[in-house]
Structure formats: C-alpha cells, structure tokens
C-alpha cells in the first residue's frame, strides 16, 4: 500500500520533470506497447548467445557477452509476472544503464542490464502534457513499475519506471528469498 501512495505522489512531480526527457523508445511486449526514456538506453542488440545462470529467479534469463563485458539479461515479461513470450526473429535485447546504490561507504555505480523485448518499434516524442499519472489498477503490472501513461495517436503507451523495474537491490533480494526457500 505504501508503494501505491508513493507513486501517486510521484506522478505529478514526474510530469513536471519530464520536459528534459521527452523522447522515448517504444517496444512491444506480449501485445502491449511500452516505452522507456531514451536517456537510459545504451544500445539495442539482436537476441542470442545467452548463458543461463542457475539458481536465479526465472526473470533473470542469464548473461551475455557485450564486447568483453558480462551483462545480465532480464526477461521483462516474467518480471511482470507473466509467461515469457517465445523468441522470434524480431526479439531484441535492449541494454539499459541503471544506477546501483552502493552501500554506505561506496559511491553509486552504474550497471548495464539487458531486457528482452518482443520487438522494438520507434523513438517517439511524448510531450509532458500528454503523460497521465499511472492508473491505480488495471494495467496488469505493478503500479510502481509505471512512471506514466503516454498518449500517442489516441492510444496509451505504458512508460516504465526503469529504476523500479530494474532495481538491482530488489532483484538481488528476490534471489536471496529464492535461496532461503530452497534451503
């Protein structure tokens, strides 16, 4: 419940802060249209050569080699609690840079995380006034994952809150929970 309140407070504030980030990459996932601010996106690569990591929650599909660096890949569909979609020719991995809060004595660092999407569509300008606060329910995914609902040609796209969807702390915690259950 607390997260719900937090998001409701965040909604208008985010709408005010949005002008600086008005371009979004839109992509399809299980038939729904989603968007991510392009400032967080580093690159988009073809799906392939994924090495799965055992003993991790299902939504962490594995790791890939990104020019010598090992980057974890998250399956957005299973992160949203839905069955993952089939890999097709159009399946892509979007590499997103997220902030990882270090412990007290460390500086925050950035980490690259790949997310699997069914297909990428285009980069869109969405003006701040065209962005509505997220609905309290009905979007079928956790409300704190949604930053806002953008209106594009009379249809809504779900603008994702990258910090929450790809929260390293939360995902690492989930993995611990899995371990505790297994033990």
């Amino acid at each position, binding site marked *: 419940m607390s997260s719900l309140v937090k998001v409701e407070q965040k909604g208008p504030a985010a709408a005010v802060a949005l002008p600086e980030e008005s371009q979004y990459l839109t992509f399809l996932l299980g038939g729904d249209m989603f968007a991510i601010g392009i400032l967080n996106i580093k690159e988009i690569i073809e799906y392939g*050569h994924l*090495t*799965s*990591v*055992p*003993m*991790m929650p299902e939504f*962490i599909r*594995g*790791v*890939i*080699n990104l020019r*010598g*660096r*090992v980057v*974890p890949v998250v399956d957005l569909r299973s992160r949203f609690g839905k069955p993952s979609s089939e890999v097709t020719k159009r399946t892509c991995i979007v590499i997103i840079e997220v902030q*990882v809060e270090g412990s007290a004595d460390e500086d925050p660092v950035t*980490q690259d*995380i790949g997310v699997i999407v069914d297909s990428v569509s285009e980069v869109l300008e969405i003006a701040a006034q065209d962005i509505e606060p997220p609905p309290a329910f009905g979007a079928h995914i956790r409300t704190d994952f949604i930053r806002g609902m953008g209106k594009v040609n009379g249809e809504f796209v779900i603008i994702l809150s990258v910090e929450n969807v790809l929260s*390293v702390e939360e*995902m*690492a915690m989930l*993995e*611990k929970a899995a*371990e505790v259950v297994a*033990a």
Partner: protein
Amino acid sequence: MSMEEALQTFFAESHELLQEMEDRLLAIPALAEEDRSETINAIFRAAHTIKGSAGLFGLDGIVEFTHVLESVLDKVRAGQLMMDADMVSLFLDCKDHVARLVELQESGATLSTDDQGKGNELVARLSVYLTDTPQAAVAPAGEASHPAPAHPTDSLALESLGGNVLDNDNWHISIEFGTDVLRNGMDPLSIFRYLGTMGHIVRVVSFFDRLPALSELDPESCYMSYVLNFHSEADKATIESAFEFVQEDCKINILPPHSRVADFVEAIKNLKQDDLRIGEMLVKSGTLTQRELDAVLAYQTAQEQGDSASQDPHKRPLGEMVVQAGIVQPEVVEAALHKQIQQKKAKSRQQQSIRVDAEKLDTLINLIGELVIAGAGVNIVAHRSGQTDMLEAASTLSRLVEEVRDSALNLRMVQIGETFNRFQRVVHDVAKDLGKEIELEITGGDTELDKTVVEKIGDPLTHLVRNSIDHGIEPADIRAARGKPAQGKVRLNAYHDSGSIIIEVQDDGGGLNRDKILAKAIEKGLVEPGIDLPDSEVYQLIFEAGFSTADKVSNISGRGVGMDVVRRNIEALRGNIEIDSQYMAGTTIRIRLPLTLAIIDGFQVKVGNAHYVIPLDMVIECVDLPEENINDGHDSNYFSLRGEVLPYMRLRESFEVTGETGKRESVVIVKYGNTRAGLVVDALLGEFQTVIKPLGKLFERLRGIGGSTILGTGEVALILDIPGLVQQMIRKSHHETSRASVKE
C-alpha cells in the same frame, strides 16, 4: 619534476620513513644496549630527513615538531639518554603525530585544535628529556652559537686530526648548481633559507662566470655558483642533507671548520675547475686568507711534481697521494672507500624497483585479460582450419600469452611481510592497554600474494590479532597457574597450499570453550539441542552475527569489525576461514585465500548446453561415474573411489538443467581445504585460461557461482565457486538428515 610532483614524492617518502621509524622503534626493546646504536641512528636519520625535506617545502609545522623530536633523539644517539619502554611509546606517539601532520598537508586540511593539543602535549613530554641534563641542552636550530660542535662525530674528529689545520671555524660550502635545477622545481634560495635554520650564513659570494651571452641565455636554466661561509653546530651529514634534492646535478663541496690544506686541494681537484678561480672563490668567501691560499697552491704544485717524478703512467688516486704525504692514516681512506662502495650498493638497490601507478598496472592486467580471451579465440579458429602451420603459430602465441599473463600477474604480487610487520605495533599497543606481555612471532613474511588481497586482508587480520590478545591469551596469573610462561605468544604465519595462500593467526592462550559456545548457540536458537556437531562447526559459530561468549566487553575487541564481518570480508575475497582450537592450549585461525583475483587456470566442463569452469587448482582428478551409480535414485550420493567414500553432487540436478544426460557422465573430483567431493558433469572439455569477469551486484548473493568468463567463441561461461557448492552440499545433507531425525 614540478613542485607538486616533488611534494608528492616527499609525502610518499615520509610515509616510508615513518614506517621504518616505527619498525625500528619496536625493535629497540629486543636489542641489547650495545647493539642499539645502528637502530637509533636509523631512527634519527628518518626524523632528520623528514625535517630536512619538510624545510625545503616550507612546511614549518612539520619542521618545528620534528626538530624537537630530533633533538631528543640526538641525545639518545649521543648516549646521554637511555631509550626505555616509556620513551619508545612516546616516540611512537610522536611518529603518529608526524604522520598525521604529513597527512593533513597531503589532504590540504588544516590542523584541528585536537591535533594541535596533541602536538603541544608531545612537545611538552619531549622537552622533559631536553631539560633534564642542562649542560647538554641542545640549542634550537638557527640560534646555534656555541663555538664548538656539541656532538662532534667521529669522522669530523678524524678530519681535524693532523695536517695543516687552517685557522677557520666556519664551514666552507661551495656549490655549483646544475643547469636543470630550476626546471626540477628546486630553488637555490629555499635551500639557503633552510640552511639558515641550521646556523648562520656568514657570507655568500655568487659567481656568474657560467652566465652565457644574453642572446643564448635560457631563463629557465640556472647558471649560478655560490660559495658560502657558514657558521653552524650541525654535523656534515646534516648540512649535506640540505642539498639532498639537488645533490645529483650539482657540484657540492662542504668543508668542515679547521680543515686541513689537503682538503682544500681535494675540493679544488674534485671541482675540476680552474685552480686560480677556486682559490679566488675561497679567498673571497673568507674561508682562506691569501697566505693560506698560497700554501694550498704550493702544496698542490708540489704534489703534481711528485706525480710526474714517480713517472707512474697511471695517475695515482688522490686518496693515495694524501696518504703518502702522511696527512691521513690509511684506515681513514679505507673507511671512506668502504662507505663509497656501500653508498653505491644502496643506490643500485634503489634503482631495482620502480614506483608505478597502481592504475597503470590494472589497465595492463585488464588488457592482458582481453589478450588471453582473444588468444583462446585464435586457438579455436586454428583448430577449425586444420592447418598445421597455423596451429603451430597459434600454440606458440598462446604459450607466450600465458607467460605474459604470469609475469603481469607477478607485478601485482607483493610480500605479505610488510602487512605482518604492521602488527608489531598493534600487538605492542594492545598488549600495553591490557597490561599483558605478548610476543609476536612472524613467519612466512616472504609469501607473495595479490596486492588487492593484501590491502583487504589488513582489517580482518587486525581484528583477529586483537581478539587473540584480548580473549585468547590469559592474564599472567592464570597463565602461571596453567604452567605457561608469563609472556603470551601470538604467531602470524603465511604459506602456499594447493593454489591458495594460507594465513594463520595462532596464539598459545586459553583456546575456545566448545561447551560454552554450544550452550550459547543453543540459547540463541542457532543450533537445536541434542545435535552432535563436529568441533570445527561449533567453532564456526563464533562467526555468526552478534555472537559473543565474552563475559565482559572490552574496548579492544569491541572496536572495529566483528567476527561476522571478518568472515564476510574473507568470503568476499573468495576465501574461507577455519578454526582449530585446543581448550587451555591455544587457538589457530586459518584463513585460506586465492592467490589472485584476476585470472585463473580453469577446467572447462559441460552440463546440458552450458559451459562451466572449475578453478584448476581445486581439481584433483576426473573419473567416469561408476555404472551402478548412473541410474540410481537420489538416495545415496556417494561412491567408492579406490576404497574411499567420495560424496558427489550432480550439477544437472543442482542447477535444474533439463534435457537428456549424455551417454557417459564424468565426475570431477575437487578438493577444498580438507573436503573432497565429486561433481557429476556431462562432458569434460579440458584446461582453459580463465579471465574472471565479475557478475555484478545482481548476482552477489548467489552461492555456488563465483564469477564468469568469456570463452574463445564469445560465449559466457560461469565459474563454479567450489567452496560455496561444497558448503551448500553439506548444508543440504545436514538439512535432510536433521529433517529425517525430526520425523523419527
């Protein structure tokens, strides 16, 4: 060298000198009275050099403090004061204060009132020693006015023996600055200013003869020469130290007061300059009178004639000349020569090591990591091509890459000795605080390990050593009752063992009380009552968070990190920690660490479609899984290996890999510490150089997978964390057995 760089060098050197000072101070109590002089000299030199260098940079705070310290040390050196335990502690505190001053300077911070108070207090404590013996009060630098040096050194005394002593009680210093002095960030003025703190500069004469025509003059070059007439009580080495930073590219000549004529001849010879000009310089600066100069020149001419008369084709060394002339005893020359050789040796030793920015080294290691991966890629292509010459070239390449990798990793290897030596101080302080008598024994200090590991091992080790002294070693009366020597012993040891480094902290104290730990664990609900645990597991309980059996909390082990943090730090280094203890007899804590964090030799295996890498130094052998175990249920996970029971785990099950198993399963037998275990895999793929890529924060809680690496094909393979897996296996079986016993 710019001023800023020179300053950085000063900071680095000061830290080293202070470290040396501390080491020597701690060594003092163990030395017999008559063997101390060398050590005391070294301590004095360290303080002195810091003072001298600080003076060059105008760091007055450091100069003032070290001056007082130096004065007391000087009295110790002269045998007027005895160095006792109190004084050692005082000097240690002073050393800390100097270190603090240097650090403040380094960070650009200003002195806090606390620091100032501390400094004043130390100065007051030092001054007690200075006023105790009034007849030998050391005059503050800059105001020295005693006619004779307070503590003439042996060499000075010798130098004044015999020969035609000149009637002169001032030092004579001639210096010709090298052209690059200014470019190197050194200002002759600041040197003179510093010299001024040691005595009184009676006269300075400047010589401009090296000055070129204005059109050729380079404003950044130094063309100056000076002759100084200097009145001071300082000894020659002290005066010389003022020129320490410019020594290399300058011609310097320092002649003590009352020098013999021969010395001036030497000075003239050494400078290889026009005799007359030097003579002129000497007269001008007031060192010599015209009459004396005539004597010197006459002496020299006589020498030269003697030379040609003997018809020696080799010019005789000046030293010999002087001896023959009956001015100096042969022993003195010998001593001088010996000193020269020693200095040369010290210099060549210095040149054998180079300071390198750690970052540059890291970049190199990273690049070599990439090279190793690329090399593996080339190998795969070569094998695929099937061309013999290509294969040959590729194998030569990979052999070389392997060598490069090893030597690059070696660059990062440092001896653990330095880290161990720091504990002399820790033991000294803690033992003093607790009123215990402790001896620290260090062995295996030359064991090498990765610098990153060394840096991170300091804190956990400190905690363990403090613990040993506080909780391990019993108070003297209990020790006596137990028939142990009153002095407790803590031992630090390091050695290599099957690809790991072992660091041991050992004490001869009371040992761990197994029953007490177990009782506490049961009380805390960590262990179910009635379960019989092996000793090693009981001891492991002390690493649990918030676990303490101590009846009283002391400020010694309460400080810093707890035992759970120690364990976490060690595990973060991919190491583990074991305890061996005998009640009443002592405890040994054994830390096992990997040698390096960057690249390892790996053994590649396949499970399902995924590749995994097992650190090669943990692999003992590979065998086929015995037939009867292939299709058994999950009941018995062990088989007989040449008569021994070997537990094994199927990676396929642990990693929940689906799909058909291969026709033949293999077992990789791994050893970790004293545990041996088998890992059942689908296929063995052989050795492989593995560059460890961290998996990142997302996977940091994952046990059983230690990292990842990139194969030659570009695919990512995961590196198995054997200790993690083995522990998991043990935990799992405990869990199952305890569940079974509950069911019963």
